């Protein structure tokens, strides 16, 4: 499979691989994805807007250039913006593949960073020299203004031109809490939402602070996904409970939606409304309680996103889907093609 290199959210020629609950594979145009939905389906997307979470600057005690990629926060509370976990890089930028990036200096607690107009202190390292906890100086307003003005969207070398926030915000983007875009939502536009509404397909949103997808470091990548705070609005929880009791399908737009909903599942065919922190991994051992189908990007094997699909389909089906997508030139990454998986009955997975 090849990496999609143009930052276009809805390319006209985007492909969609469809895997039904019996493991049958077919192909369609992604712009026709609404045709896969049925009256009564409840479609749920992540409405997190993407922060400009890449902050460049200097490590003051050594003068070294650094790039901080904000990667996690404790909660979605609007005032809880002073403290972040961050993956640190040395000199250079997104044009260099992350695995080839220069290492940052060795951080010790108390080190100060100047990141554009922002000042931050490394309060501790988090089990890896490149993963640190940062505390920003200043008021909430100053921190927001500094991030908004100085930050850039986190970006990888497969996209060669610098990304702007308008490239990475979905049309439904709301609270700016995601560190990378919940890119499955790129499929949505207002026309699609209007068509869904006309066809009796329900739509609701959750907010999950989607974390970073790659660090360039094998040891750190093995720890992904990091813990992600989320919020399920009361209206969304009620819509889910009604759909579950009616036996209607729940369709997740993206892996982050699956992670939030399954974390909030109560075990009684219901989800908890409100805030939580998703800490779990979803893989072949997971028994999904809420989500019946997922629309997601094309993920490379061995990534956590790919492992999550094992909760929907067996290993044989997934290997076959990967082979078909390779043969047909499906494009990976956030601006690439998409997959649709309906959950196989548990007894047929293997």
């Amino acid at each position: 499979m090849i990496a999609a290199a143009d930052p276009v959210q809805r390319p006209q020629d985007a492909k969609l691989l469809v895997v039904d609950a019996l493991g049958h594979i077919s192909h369609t145009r992604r712009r026709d994805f609404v045709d896969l939905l049925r009256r009564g389906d409840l479609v749920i997307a992540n409405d997190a807007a993407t922060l400009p979470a890449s902050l460049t600057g200097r490590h003051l005690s050594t003068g070294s250039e650094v790039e901080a990629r904000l990667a996690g926060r404790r909660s979605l509370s609007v005032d809880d913006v002073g403290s972040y976990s961050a993956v640190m890089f040395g000199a250079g930028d997104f044009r260099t593949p992350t695995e080839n990036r220069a290492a940052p200096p060795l951080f010790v607690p108390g080190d100060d960073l100047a990141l554009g107009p922002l000042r931050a202190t490394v309060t501790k390292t988090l089990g890896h020299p490149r993963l640190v906890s940062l505390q920003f100086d200043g008021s909430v307003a100053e921190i927001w203004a500094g991030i908004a003005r100085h930050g850039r969207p986190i970006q990888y070398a497969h996209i060669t031109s610098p990304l702007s926030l308008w490239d990475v915000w979905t049309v439904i983007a709301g609270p700016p809490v995601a560190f990378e875009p919940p890119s499955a939502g790129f499929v949505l536009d207002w026309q699609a939402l209007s068509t869904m509404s006309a066809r009796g397909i329900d739509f609701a949103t959750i907010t999950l602070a989607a974390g970073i997808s790659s660090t360039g470091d094998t040891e750190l990548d093995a720890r992904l996904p990091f813990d992600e705070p989320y919020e399920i609005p009361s209206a969304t929880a009620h819509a889910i409970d009604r759909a579950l009791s009616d036996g209607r399908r729940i369709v997740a737009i993206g892996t982050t939606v699956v992670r939030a909903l399954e974390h909030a599942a109560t075990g009684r065919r219901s989800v908890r409304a409100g805030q939580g922190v998703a800490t779990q991994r979803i893989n072949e051992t997971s028994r999904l309680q809420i989500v019946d189908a997922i629309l997601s990007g094309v993920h490379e094997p061995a990534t956590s996103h790919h492992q999550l699909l094992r909760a929907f389909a067996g290993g044989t089906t997934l290997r076959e889907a990967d082979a078909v997508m390779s043969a047909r030139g499906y494009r990976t990454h956030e601006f690439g093609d998409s997959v649709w998986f309906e959950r196989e009955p548990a007894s047929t997975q293997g």
Partner: protein
Amino acid sequence: MNRFIDLRVAVTGGTSGLGLALVQQLSARGARVAFVARGRERVERVARECPGTHGIVGDVSLKTDIYPIAVQILGELGGLDVLINNASDLGPATLRLLGDTDCEDLERALATNLVGPFRLTKAVLGALSASARAGRGAVVLNISSDAALNPYPTWGAYGASKAALRHLSAIWDSEIAEQGVRVLSLDPGDMDTPLHAQAVPGADPSTLKRPQVAALEMIDAIMAALPVVERDLDGALAIAGHQRVQ
């Protein structure tokens, strides 16, 4: 029940004229207000004078300022229920015939009065629709003018930009109402504001509406377009007239 408590409002052009009056009155009623203006010093002063408001320095006529403004509005308020596109530019420094109007002055009027509101509304439309889905309702108020309707000589740049904004509002409202978002266009009338003084330097202020009065009328119109919601003791929202699903 105070309907303003927890209402999240953003106002552009919030440090003078109608915008300032809106910030002061919404804040005084308990709304959570973020406001945008170009001058840092004025933004900081208004933020000090209206404690609890969020001042944002930015220029809505600049494409590159829109997303930083949106990040700060949505970040500091955690979402958005009401956007008031109030910032306006007369075009030329003084009123003049269209034939004497520099192209750049027309472009600036369009950038501030039409394209800026379009861009900012687009950037926060996801947040507004989330408010609507949550039962809170959502309103975009675009500040219009009688110059949007009447072809007053010498008001060409301003009038053309406000006419376009008014039509944009009407079309957007018809498209997005099904998502629960309302887009309003309202003319506050001739007010005693810096923009009016720039346009008509000799006007007698006593013949003009006070911006505080116009702000009350705008706020009434916004509240009329929002659903009446009741809050349970646990803070959950319920739409009046509907049973809350347990």
